[in-house]
């Protein structure tokens, strides 16, 4: 189907959200993604998958795209795409890495870099539906200015008693930073993640190495593997045709 770009939101210096208008969109679950296909004039095609960043709202589908150095698709989406342009999408896709408020919680979201995108859809769904399930959101970014959705998360954490947000900055941090300043490790997970005793639903998303390390550690800490769902981002971000 064809989707029209209607609005752009600059989330960080390298990340932009794109609001798409998809006529007769059937709706989607938090965590699902769309497949986007671009066709050049000579017929060459490139396809990538992008997680949807917000719960279903009519024909509105929001994706959040990170600029990949030397990438083929992300530079186009971030630097060339204009309001009014149409792009070909397919979706919604995915039934495994999804959460909806009816599944309950506690909900544990752990994201590395742009892995936070599908997790943000889950968090936004929880807030919007006034879900009882308490949520803990742990994200890892290189620096303060790389924290995607930072301002919204600050607001949500301060206004919603059932939501706790922790960010760790791995490369550099501002002088007044009080949060962790290292890569996510066993100690950080033991401290900030819901304990296994409350049987949380855990969703881990991000680069392959990050996800592997976090998921393995969660199981070592006692979380049941069936309650830890993972979505690894490959270097190219999707299926190539």
């Amino acid at each position, binding site marked *: 189907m064809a989707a029209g770009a209607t609005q752009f939101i600059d989330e960080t210096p390298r990340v932009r959200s794109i609001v798409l208008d998809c006529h007769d969109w059937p709706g989607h679950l938090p965590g699902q993604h769309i497949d986007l296909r671009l066709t050049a004039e000579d017929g060459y*095609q490139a396809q990538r998958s992008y997680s949807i960043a917000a719960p279903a709202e009519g024909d509105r589908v929001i994706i959040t795209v990170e600029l990949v150095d030397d990438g083929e698709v992300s530079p186009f989406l971030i630097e060339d795409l204009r309001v009014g342009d*149409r792009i070909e999408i397919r979706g919604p896709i995915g039934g495994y890495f999804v959460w909806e408020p009816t599944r309950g919680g506690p909900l544990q979201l752990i994201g590395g870099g742009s892995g936070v995108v599908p997790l943000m859809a889950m968090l936004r769904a929880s807030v919007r539906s006034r879900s009882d399930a308490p949520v803990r959101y742990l994200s890892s970014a290189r620096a303060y200015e790389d924290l995607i959705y930072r301002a919204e998360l600050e607001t949500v954490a301060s206004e919603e008693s059932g939501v706790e947000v922790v960010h760790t900055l791995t490369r550099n941090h501002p002088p007044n930073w009080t949060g962790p300043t290292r890569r996510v490790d066993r100690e950080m997970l033991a401290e900030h993640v819901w304990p296994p005793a409350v049987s949380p639903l855990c969703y881990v998303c991000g680069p392959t190495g990050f996800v592997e390390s976090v998921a393995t550690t969660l199981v070592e800490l006692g979380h049941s593997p069936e309650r830890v769902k993972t979505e690894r981002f490959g270097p190219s971000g999707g299926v190539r045709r």
Partner: protein
Amino acid sequence: MSFVTRGFRGRRRLEGPPGRVPPGQYVTTEFPVLSAGPTPRVQLEEWSFTVTDAGGDTLEWTWSEFTSLPTETVTVDIHCVTKWSKLDTTWEGVSLDTLFARVGSPGSHALFHSYGGYTTNLPVEDITGGKAWVAFRYEGEPLTSEHGGPARLLVPHLYFWKSAKWVRGVVVSDSDRPGFWESYGYHNYGDPWREQRYAGD
């Protein structure tokens, strides 16, 4: 229905010098890593290469024996079925002619086996007569595990899926058995100049 996306150009695809690039391929300066499974980690002390001939007799080399064999350094173009070609790649390895010199019953078909379970089949005449090597150095350096190290097969005149990574041996016989990608619908022979990508091409 697909439609052209305004302003999208895609990765710059080089065409390459005429006559060097088979149909449907584009030239890359990168060396993409493609794999069907986890990278095997093979300790050199455990590594061996075995040739099993059509009569069932075997010849086996340990790593130190293998790397003491005469080697050749070749500069070749390689062509992947996923459409990229890389020109002028330099490899050092042992020619299959050297390995087959003492083979009693050469047979007509070869099935190469790799650590990790990958297999690929080729006619014996496509791996002899200076057409194939077991390579362990790439661009002057030991072959990295992501590109098939300790050693991989190198058969540049066919699509690169035939150049099995992490190779551990070859079984020669008089019957042809399809290897991994061949059994999933890729072409049994794989000549890039006749664009033999899929079975039936």
